[in-house]
C-alpha cells in the first residue's frame, strides 16, 4: 500500500501574539510546526502501513525551512519526504495544483491522506481540491478508516450523523483529529530519520504561470472583550438574572 501524506508547516498559533495597537499577528520568532491534524493523517498512514506494508511519502508545499518539519514525520515513520518549495502566501488553488503535480510525479499511490483542514487557515479546501485535480474519489472528515486489500471504508463525521463510505483505490481521505492519537517518535527513530531522503523541487519546475485566485488583503487577530458583569446580590436572584441575560444574548436557547 503506497501512501502519500500531505502535511503543512504552520506557525504554532498557541505561541502567537497579537499587536494590541494594529491588531496584526506578530509572526516573528513564533515557532513553526506540522499542522496538528496532518499528524493524525500521518499516524493513520503508519497504521495502514503496519497492516499492509508499503511506503509512506510525506509531501509538503512550503518554504525551504519546512524540511525540518518533514524530518519530524520521517522520525514518526514516513519513508521519504518531498518538499515543493514555493513562495509563502500562496492560495488554495496554487497549493492544490502544486500538490497534484507533485503527486503525478511521485505516481504509484493507493491512498492520499490529508488533515481535514490546517490549524492556521482552517479552510478545509486542499483535500477536496486535490482530489478534483487528480480526478480521484475522496472521503472527507474520516473519523475512522479500515483499509483492506482492495477497498477502504471510512466513518465520516458529519456532525449530526455518521456516514459510512467505501471506495476503491486510489482514493484521497481527509481525517479529523478524533481518528487517533499521533505517536511520538523514539530517540532512536529521530536519529535514524537523518538517513531518510528528503527531495526538494521548486514550484516552477512543476508548473509555470501559476497565479493566485484569491488575494489576502489583510490579516488581523480576533480580540475578545470581556463584559465584566458581576452578579453579587442574592444568589438565587443572580442566577436568574444571569440565565435571563444569557438567553437574551442568544448564548442559551430554550
Amino acid at each position: 500500500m503506497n501512501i502519500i501524506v500531505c502535511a503543512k508547516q504552520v506557525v504554532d498559533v498557541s505561541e502567537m501574539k497579537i499587536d494590541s495597537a494594529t491588531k496584526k499577528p506578530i509572526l516573528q520568532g513564533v515557532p513553526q510546526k506540522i499542522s496538528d491534524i496532518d499528524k493524525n493523517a500521518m499516524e493513520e498512514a503508519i497504521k495502514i502501513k503496519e497492516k499492509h506494508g508499503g511506503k509512506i511519502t510525506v509531501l509538503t508545499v512550503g518554504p525551504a525551512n519546512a524540511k525540518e518539519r518533514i524530518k519530524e514525520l520521517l522520525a514518526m515513520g514516513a519513508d521519504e519526504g518531498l518538499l515543493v518549495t514555493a513562495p509563502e502566501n500562496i492560495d488554495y488553488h496554487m497549493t492544490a495544483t502544486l500538490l497534484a503535480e507533485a503527486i503525478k510525479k511521485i505516481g504509484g499511490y493507493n491512498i492520499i491522506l490529508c488533515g481535514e483542514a490546517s490549524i492556521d487557515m482552517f479552510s478545509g479546501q486542499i483535500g477536496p481540491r486535490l482530489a478534483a485535480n487528480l480526478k480521484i474519489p475522496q472521503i472527507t472528515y474520516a473519523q475512522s478508516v479500515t483499509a483492506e486489500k482492495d477497498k477502504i471504508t471510512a466513518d465520516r463525521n458529519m456532525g449530526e450523523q455518521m456516514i459510512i463510505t467505501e471506495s476503491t483505490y486510489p482514493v484521497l481521505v481527509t481525517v479529523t483529529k478524533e481518528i487517533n492519537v499521533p505517536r511520538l517518535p523514539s530517540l532512536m527513530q529521530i536519529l535514524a530519520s537523518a538517513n531518510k531522503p528528503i527531495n526538494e523541487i521548486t514550484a516552477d519546475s512543476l508548473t509555470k504561470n501559476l497565479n493566485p485566485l484569491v488575494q489576502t488583503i489583510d490579516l488581523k487577530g480576533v480580540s475578545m472583550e470581556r463584559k465584566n458583569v458581576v452578579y453579587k446580590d442574592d444568589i438565587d436572584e443572580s442566577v436568574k438574572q444571569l440565565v435571563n441575560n444569557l438567553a437574551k444574548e442568544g448564548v442559551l436557547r430554550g
Partner: protein
Amino acid sequence: MVILLDFTLTNEKKLFQKTVREFCEKEIKPIASKIDKEEYFPTDLYKKMGKMGLMGMTVPQKYGGAGIDRISYMIALEEISRVCGSTGITVEAHNSLGLGHIYEKGTEKQRKKYLPTLTSGRAIAAWALTEPNAGSDASATQTTAVLDGNEWVINGTKQFITSGDIADVTTVMAMTDKSKGAKGISAFIVEKDTPGFKVGQLEDKLGLRGSHTAELVFDNCRIPKENLLGELGMGFVGAMNILDRGRTAIGAMSVGIARGAFEDALEYAKQRQQFGKPIGKNQAIQWMLADMATEIDAARLLVYRAAYLEDQNVRFTKEASMAKLFASEIAMRTTVKAIQIYGGNGYMREYPLERYYRDIKLCTIGEGTSEVQRMIIARQLGL
C-alpha cells in the same frame, strides 16, 4: 569556517527536546503529584520510557540503547526533572550510574547479558557505593568481597541506594584488599534475589518521595566469579569516573527542577493581581525572576559544557563538579524564590512549588555534596 562557540541547539537536538517535552507533558506531569504524595512507582511509565529510548540514552543501539550523545542526554534529563524530580533521579541513577557502570567498565559478555533488559525499561539498575560509615569519604568502604573458589562472597551494608529495592541488577563496590586502601576496592554485579542479598530499611525522605531509597544488606552473598565488574582493585577509580558523569547529569536534573519552578512562578507573576495590578509589575518580583532566569541559563551552559567535553572524550572532572555545584545551588535559590512569588499558595501542597523545593535539596547532597564538589574543584586547581 571555524566556529569557536555555537549556542544554538542543532535541529536534531531541538527535535529531541520537543519530543521528550511532549512525552513528559503527556505521560509524567499528570501523575507527578501522585508519584510524590503516594510514593508511587509507575512501573509502566518506565516501560514506556524504555520504548522511547530514555532508559539507555547514551548506550549504543547494539545493546538496545538510544545511542544519543551526552548533551542530548542532559536535554532529556532537564525535561523529565522539570515535571517530576522523582522520575528525574530514577532515570538519572539508572542511566548514569547503574547502567553507566556496566556499559563503561563491563566486558562484552556482561554488556550483552545485562544491557538489553535494562535499556528496555523492563528492569531497573542501581548502584551502591555509600555506606553508613563511608559517605563523602567513599574510599572508607567496609563492605568486603572475598574470593572462595569460583564465587565472591560479599558481606556488608550499603545505604541510601536509589532504586535499591526494585533494581534487578545492582553494581556494588566492595573491599577486596584492605591493605591497598582505595586501590583495594572492586566493583561487582549483583542480581536481584541472589541468596544472602536482602533489602533493609526503605528511607522516608524529605523529597523525591517517588524515588525509592533503600538499605542493602549482604550476608554471605555469593555471586559468580565472572561478576567482577572491571579490573580487580579498580572499583573505586571506576566509581569516581562514573560519578564524574553522574554529576553533570545531576546538574541537568537541577536545571530541570529550577526551570519547572521558574516557569510556574513567571506565569503566576503575570496572573496574580494585588494592589490592582499583576504582582509581576513590581520591581521586587521582576528582579527575582530576572535573577532566576539568568542563573538557570548560566547553569545550563555549565552543564552543556561538561557534557560537550564528555562527548569529546577529554577530561571533564572539574567542569562536571562546577556544573553540579552551581546548578544545584542556584536551583535551591530558584525554588525558594518561586515559593515566595506564589505567596501562601506556594506553601500549599495543592501546587507543585513546595515539591520542587523539597526535591531539589538532594541535588546538593547526592553524588557528592556541594562541599565535596568544591574540594574536587580546588584539587583540580592545584590546591
